[in-house]
């Protein structure tokens, strides 16, 4: 910083000119509290002289009050923003930090290293270009190192720098450094990183952070700051096909109709033939309009307004692309989901999917498997809890234009929003469209299985008999509704207002209606005093049918054993979980 300070003092205009074209790097730091992550970022801010005197005074006071470093300054306290977290001694969310050197501006996403980790890390990594992965030299590669690395690769970061910290505590051993690095390289092969750098550091002592450490003469590579200042991140977004999600139709008067948005990838010039992916309409770019004048060309990352040569119908949510490199258009797709909400994902529930500037009603049709973020193993699963990752199929109410996340981060991502609470419940990364869409919606045959798939449930007729049958049926129906499933309690009074129980006369009609509702994909509930006759059973032919006997005699062989000691609520939950999901 000294040369810099001199330039600032002597020729501020020259300095400003030099700063004008500075690039920017967004990176994420991954590691747990014990790895010294906050200390590392505090050290970067400190050594790049971004901590002001008044902040230092407050830091010194805080260090004495709640610090963990005795009389030394606790750099970690710079990072812990919220008061409650400061008192607990842990950070619980994503915090963003800013610092700059002569060569670059930096935005650091700092995420905590405990149980909410997946959610926060994926959030912080979503906009990052590089990941700094911290490892404690004494402990080596831990489960959490694998988890961090997997999540980093999941959100598409291709460059990682493995900072092996606390080298002072292993006597700056080259052998230890190499042992950890080799193990990491082996493990990371399937993650497909383009580049893995490794630096031996001590965040506490400042080794190899800003300047080369005298303690590691065997290490000839760059310091951490050098690496961050020079790592090549020229995003390849510009070389990918042109994509512009229309955010805003700019129509100040009858003579001007512009389509505003940020270019996700590629480049565009006046005269280029553009295509609205979902409608198939096309035109040519007339002008690239900005406040600072029309542009001869616009690139990925720029926020612009395009006017077209023809008046075609375009609105917010449309994706402008080019005819020769169209995106996929589909209403059925496979995607990886990271579940972000305390209420678990249960397939079948309807939600809103926001991708680019488009928002469409959607349903998670099926959960194919869960990915164990520690072992990367694929595991069977019926739901996805917070911080879990899974591969799902989704049905959309209308076709969406997209690319796979692997090909285009900006047009392959989405979030899911809960329709009732409006919470952001999941982050999604699209793998591929699925067959249904590729064939077109008219070519699909409709049967019970198809209806059931669209509802995300197993159609079923449940015949419940016994003293509490009606109460249990009602509870099962409520439970189904709670889980976003379509159940229907077929009460006898629906057929005959006078009837309050299932009589012999009602039985044939009841069975027939149950069969039809079941064919519609519903879970049909019938509560009766007695068990089902063979005649009625015959009428239900073709349906998936289950009989539940409440208070059955001990010697009866029940199809589904209920724990007699449980409350009816609990029994309803068990029934639904075992038979309907």
């Amino acid at each position, binding site marked *: 910083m000294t040369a810099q*300070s001199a330039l*600032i*003092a002597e020729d*501020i205009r020259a300095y*400003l000119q030099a*700063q*004008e074209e*500075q*690039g*920017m790097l967004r990176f994420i730091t991954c590691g747990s509290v014990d790895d010294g992550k906050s200390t590392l970022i505090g050290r970067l801010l400190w050594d790049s002289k971004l901590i*002001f*005197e*008044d*902040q230092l005074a407050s830091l010194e006071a805080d260090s004495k009050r709640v610090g963990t470093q005795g009389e030394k300054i606790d750099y970690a306290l*710079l990072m*812990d*923003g*919220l*008061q*409650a977290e400061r008192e607990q001694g842990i950070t619980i*969310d*994503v915090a*963003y930090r*800013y610092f*700059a050197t002569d060569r670059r*501006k930096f*935005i650091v996403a700092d995420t905590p290293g405990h149980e909410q980790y997946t*959610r926060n890390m*994926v*959030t912080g990594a*979503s*906009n990052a270009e590089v990941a700094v992965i911290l490892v404690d030299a004494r402990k080596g590669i831990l489960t959490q190192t694998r988890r961090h690395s997997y999540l980093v690769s999941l959100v598409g970061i291709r460059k990682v720098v493995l900072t092996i910290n606390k080298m002072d505590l292993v006597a700056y051993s080259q052998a230890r450094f190499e042992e950890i690095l080799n193990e990491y390289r082996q493990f990371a092969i399937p993650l497909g990183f383009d580049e893995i750098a490794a630096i031996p550091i001590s965040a506490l002592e400042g080794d190899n952070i800003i300047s080369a450490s005298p303690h590691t003469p065997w290490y000839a590579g760059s310091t951490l700051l050098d690496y961050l200042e020079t790592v090549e991140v020229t995003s390849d977004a510009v070389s990918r096909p042109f994509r512009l999600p229309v*955010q*805003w139709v*700019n*129509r100040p008067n009858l003579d*001007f109709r*512009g389509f*505003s*948005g*940020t270019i996700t990838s590629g480049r565009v010039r006046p005269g280029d033939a553009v295509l609205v992916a979902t409608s198939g309409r096309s035109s040519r770019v007339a002008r690239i*309009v*900005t*406040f600072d004048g029309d542009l001869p060309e616009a*690139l990925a*990352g*720029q*926020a612009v307004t395009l006017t077209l040569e023809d008046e075609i119908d375009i609105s917010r949510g449309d994706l402008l692309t080019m005819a020769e490199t169209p995106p996929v258009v589909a209403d059925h797709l496979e995607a990886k989901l990271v579940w*972000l909400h305390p209420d678990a994902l249960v397939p079948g529930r309807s939600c*809103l999917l926001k991708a*680019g500037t488009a928002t469409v009603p959607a349903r998670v049709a099926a959960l194919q498997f869960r990915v164990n973020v520690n072992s990367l193993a694929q595991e069977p699963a019926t739901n996805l809890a917070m911080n879990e990752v899974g591969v799902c199929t989704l049905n959309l109410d209308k076709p969406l234009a997209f690319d796979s996340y692997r090909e285009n*981060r900006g047009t392959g*991502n*989405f*979030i899911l*929003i809960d329709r009732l609470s*409006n*919470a*952001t419940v999941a*982050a999604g990364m699209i793998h591929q469209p699925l067959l249904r869409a590729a064939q077109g919606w008219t070519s699909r045959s409709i049967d019970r299985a198809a209806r059931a798939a669209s509802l995300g449930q197993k159609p079923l007729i449940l015949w419940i008999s016994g003293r509490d049958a009606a109460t249990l049926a009602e509870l099962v129906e409520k439970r189904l509704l709670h889980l976003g499933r379509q159940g229907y309690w077929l009460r006898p009074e629906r057929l005959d207002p006078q009837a309050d129980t299932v009589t012999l006369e009602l039985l044939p009609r009841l069975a027939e209606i149950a069969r039809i509702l079941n064919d519609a994909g519903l879970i049909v509930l019938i509560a009766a005093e007695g068990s089902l006759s063979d005649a009625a059973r015959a009428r239900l032919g073709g349906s998936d049918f289950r009989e539940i006997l409440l208070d059955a005699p001990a010697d009866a062989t029940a199809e589904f054993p209920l724990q007699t000691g449980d409350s009816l609520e609990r029994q309803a939950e068990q029934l639904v979980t075992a038979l309907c999901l």
Partner: protein
Amino acid sequence: MPLSHLRQLEAESIHILREVAAEFENPVMLYSIGKDSAVMLHLARKAFYPGKLPFPLLHVDTTWKFREMIAFRDRMASEYGFELLIHTNQDGVAKGISPFAHGSALYTDIMKTEGLKQALDKYQFDAAFGGARRDEEKSRAKERIFSFRSENHRWDPKNQRAELWNLYNARVKKGESIRAFPLSNWTELDVWQYIYRENIPIVPLYFAAVRPVVERDGMLILVDDERLQLQPGEVVQHKSVRFRTLGCYPLTGAVASTATSLPEIIQEMLLTRTSERQGRLIDHDSAGSMEKKKQEGYF
């Protein structure tokens, strides 16, 4: 050649501005007349060019702003032709609430926080742009770009929506709202560099000039009008001063300076060793004071 950092920040802010305008029914831009507001306004003009701003600007006037700020505000409104709403907490005025008589904490709560809530309720805004930056203060480092507020305008730091990529969740129920921060990722230096590069007009108080000031509680307070009563022993001095941050004149300290141009201001800022919020009285009240104010609805 990748976009320079200022171009990237500019594009990100424009994206946020357009997203809010498109997704909400009744957005508003909170206009504090300071340098961050000036940048935010400039970015909004870029975002919707050649159209006009699709939302009004709201100034919560505490009646204690610097006179030059008010003059600047009115000049901007007539030059740029945006719709300007001005709201003052009349209950506070009736009760004679002043920073001198009631202290900065109570005064800020009534005239700023309450005034803002009144205005948001009165016009039923479902989104409000603010010029806050994450680098300003520790509790802001974790603030979302779309910050969800409950029906009574409260910010719950434990119940904020996850925010990924550039996908912002704009769904609110009636009465709920969001605060949107287009300058989240800008630093103080970025703001000054951008003002310089784009030649954005700012209130002249940011530039050094000889002004009448009194020294009080370790701060240099501008004698902006007759409401500032001299305490025993205080004398009005004429000094070359400027303001690093602008707010209510009795709560905003000036710094001795000779910087009369933008490069000189930036030079001074880069060589100084105190952060900009130090000139604000309200931050000194207690540790975590900004965080408490945010939970209550202060920006």
